[in-house]
Structure formats: C-alpha cells, structure tokens
C-alpha cells in the first residue's frame, strides 16, 4: 500500500516508471503463483483435466498479455485508443475496392482479376498516403460510414505499438492505416498454411491435423449437403473457403496483439458483396435470363400472380438487395460487439495494473473477462457458420427445380429411417 501511494504521488516520472515496473513484476509473479497453485490443485487427482486446464489457461494468459500491452504502451491519455479515423472519401472508397479486388482475385483466381491486383494495391497506397497525416485521436464525430469503428475505443495491437516506436517509417505507417487488410492477409496466410501443412501428405489413416481438417470439412459438407443436394460439389468450394476465411479472421482477434478484420464494416461488406454477386451470377447462369426475371417476379403461374406483379417485383428486388446488407451488418455487429466487450474488461484490468493494484483486483477481473473470451470464441465460430450457411441458403434459392431437388432429398433420406 505504501508503495502504491508512493507510485501514485511520485512527482518524478523516472521514479514512477521504475516503481511501476517493479510493482508490475511483483504483481505478475503473484498472479502466476495464485493461478499456478489453482492449476496444481486442479490437476492433482488425475491428468484427465488437461483440456479444461488449457481452456482456462489460454484465455487468462491472453487477457493478461492484452492488459499488459495496454498498460505498458504509451501514456495514460491514450490508454484506450480511438480508431484511426479515415477522413476523406477517396480513402473510404479505395480501401474496400482494393479489398474486393484482392479477395476476388484470391477466391476466383481468374486471370483478369489478377491483372487488376497491382493497380488496386497502388490505388490503396496513394489513398493511404493522402490520408496519412490525419489526426488519430479525438475525431470521434467523423463520418462513420467507412470503418464503423471510429469514435470507439479499441485495443492497441502490434502494428499500433510498432507505429508508436517508428512513427516515421512509411511501411509501418501504411500498415497502421490499413490494419484490417494486414490482419486479413495474415488470417488467410495462417489458414492456408495450416491447411497446406496438414494436407501436404494425405494418408489413409490421418494424422491429428489432417483428421481435424477432414472432420471440419466433412461436417460442413453434411450440413450444406442437406440443403444443396446434388448441386453440392459445384458450390461447396466457395462456401468452405468463405467459412474458413471468416473463421480465421474472427478467431485471430483473440490472440493478444492481433485484431479481427471482421470487426470492420469494409471487410464484411466486401465478403458479403462477393457472395451477393456470386449468388446473382449463379442464378443468371442456372435459370437463364428469362428464368431469372421470372424468379424475381415471384414465379407467377395464375391470374392472381400476374395481378400482383407490380408489387412483387420491387419487393423481391429489395429482398435481394437486403441480403448483402444483412450479411455484412450481422457479422460486423457481432464481432465488433464482442471486441468492445473485451475492450471494456481489459481496459478495467489495465487501469488496475496502472494503479499497481495487481494482486487485489486483477485476478477476479481476469476471471470474469475470461468467460467473455470463451463467449467470443463461441460467437466467432457461430457467426462464421451463419455466414456460410446463409450463403448456402441464398445459393439454394437460386437453383432451378427446387421441388424436384427437395423430392430427391426426401427420397434419399427415406431408407435411413
């Protein structure tokens, strides 16, 4: 307590820093001892509790790291960072456009899209330099139509801290301005790397990683196969790619120092627009132009249907246009809401760390917020699942002969009962 008051009342900045570092160290040791004792107690009867222990330890360690990152980065006035406001409409338009180009090039890997890639990159780069000298904090009432995150506190990540240490470096500054692009690429690289590592030498009796990957893919195949039926193998690559991409982008935000790219409306809107265009393209190709218009008109077959035509066409067009909005806003809102929840708890923990109240207030605070981190992991998985399943549903609606496919499916399921 004496040390705490000394640290709080000390006038000299260097002394205060030294005291705070010492207290941080002692507090960290205390926390380690407390939790180490608890874990030793849990694992004493048997070693069967390993998954439980890991499930409790990983969120706690992650939270503690996040809180420490928040506490030791620069001064108290930016304890909770404001999101970098992207002023200037060119930046707001160019960055989603670049993301759409890149994601489209990745997903479709078509030759014309790939030739667009450097152009889009340079466009985003120029836009980033145009908004490079925008003030970071305080611009809370900037027009929030781009990031959605402006005006809301968020945790610093490794790029923020790098930007603090090297404020003049152009590359780091570009990364700081386009954090979500960097983390989206990182998520894609992690996901592709794990898949490549697991499946590079597929064996008949799978190893652990191959087993996990096969289990996930087969579960998704079962779920989507119930809806798409015989069309499954045509559309499954897109669905599973979107699922794993969104999942890895969601889950990467749990790691301290990383950020969920899906907590930005730009990324989710780009993904939803790609899905929307793919669904419309599928409808046009499968139903033909006339069948597509017929589908938009609600398939009128009798007099009442044709009388209701002027009402049904705008309703159906509006329904189609609502799909990307609902997809993107749902994903963005869920992930961003969870992130904000974590920020509130981690911010409180970091305030306790800064006030050197480590052993007093941090353990219960970490315990509470670890529960919310487990909730965040659950939400990440469920939201990725919902995104992929809704893409499946939209694709299913665009497929021809719905009654026929439905009959087939029931027929296929009948012997199993």
């Amino acid at each position, binding site marked *: 307590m004496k040390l705490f008051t000394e640290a709080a009342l000390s006038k000299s900045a260097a002394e205060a820093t030294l005291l705070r570092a010492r207290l941080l160290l002692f507090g960290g040791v205390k926390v380690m001892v407390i939790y180490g004792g608890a874990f030793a107690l849990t694992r004493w009867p048997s070693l069967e509790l390993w998954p439980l222990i890991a499930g409790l330890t990983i969120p706690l360690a992650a939270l503690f790291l996040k809180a420490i990152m928040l506490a030791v980065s620069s001064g108290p006035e930016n304890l909770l960072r404001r999101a970098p406001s992207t002023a200037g409409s060119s930046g707001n338009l160019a960055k989603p456009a670049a993301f759409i180009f890149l994601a489209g090039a990745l997903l479709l890997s078509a030759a014309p899209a790939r030739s667009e890639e450097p152009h889009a990159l340079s466009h985003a780069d120029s836009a980033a330099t145009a908004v490079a000298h925008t003030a970071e904090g305080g611009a809370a009432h*900037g027009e929030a*139509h781009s990031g*959605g995150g402006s005006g809301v506190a968020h945790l610093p990540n490794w790029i923020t801290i790098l930007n603090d240490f090297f404020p003049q470096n152009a590359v780091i500054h570009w990364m700081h301005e386009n954090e979500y692009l960097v983390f989206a690429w990182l998520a894609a690289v992690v996901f592709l790397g794990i898949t490549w590592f697991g499946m590079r030498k597929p064996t008949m009796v799978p190893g652990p990683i191959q087993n996990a990957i096969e289990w996930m893919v087969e579960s998704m195949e*079962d779920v989507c196969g*119930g809806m798409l039926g015989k069309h499954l193998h045509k559309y499954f690559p897109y669905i599973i790619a979107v699922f794993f991409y969104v999942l890895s982008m969601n889950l990467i935000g749990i790691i301290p120092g990383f950020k969920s790219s899906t907590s930005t409306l730009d990324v989710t809107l780009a993904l939803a627009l790609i899905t929307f265009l793919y669904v419309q393209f599928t409808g046009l190709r499968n139903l033909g132009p006339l069948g597509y218009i017929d589908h938009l008109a609600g398939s009128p077959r009798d007099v009442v249907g044709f009388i209701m035509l002027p009402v049904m066409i705008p309703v159906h067009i509006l329904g189609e246009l609502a799909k990307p909005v609902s997809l993107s*806003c*749902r994903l963005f809102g869920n992930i961003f809401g969870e992130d904000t929840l974590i920020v509130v708890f981690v911010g409180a923990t970091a305030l306790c760390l800064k006030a050197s109240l480590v052993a007093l207030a941090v353990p219960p605070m970490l315990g509470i917020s670890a529960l919310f981190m487990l909730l965040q992991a659950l939400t990440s998985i469920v939201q990725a*699942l919902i995104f992929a*399943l809704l893409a499946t549903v939209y694709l299913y609606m665009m497929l021809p002969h719905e009654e026929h496919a439905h009959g087939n499916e029931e027929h296929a399921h009948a012997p199993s009962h």
Partner: protein
Amino acid sequence: MNFAATLGLGLPIGIGLAAIGSGIGIGFLGQGAMGAMGRQPDVLPKLQVAMIIGFGFAEALTIYAFVTMFFLQGKIQ
C-alpha cells in the same frame, strides 16, 4: 432537451426495445426446436442447423440497432 441528450437517451432505449423483440423471437425458436428435438431425436442435426440459422435472423435485428448505435454514438458530445 437538445439533440445530444435526445440521442443519448434514445439509443440505449432503442437497443433495449430491439433486444426485447429478438429475445421473444429466439425464445419461440428455441422452444419449438427443443420440443421437436425431444419428440424426434433422429432429426436433431437438421433441426440444429435450421435453429442456428433462425437464431441468426432473429439476432440480426438487435445487431442492426447495435450498428446504428455505433454509427450515431460519435454525435453524442
């Protein structure tokens, strides 16, 4: 009552109202799905998938209110 005060009062109330609707919807969905699962356990996987999609739709309404709150939050000064 000025603009910021109105916004500061209205946004939480709006989210609360939206959450009431979503909660009722999710409650009905869960009730129906649980009842059906209890009666017919062999359709459980299909029901679960449909239930999760329904949850997503019902929950999205609150999320819209939530997103609106984030967009308008900066105007409360």
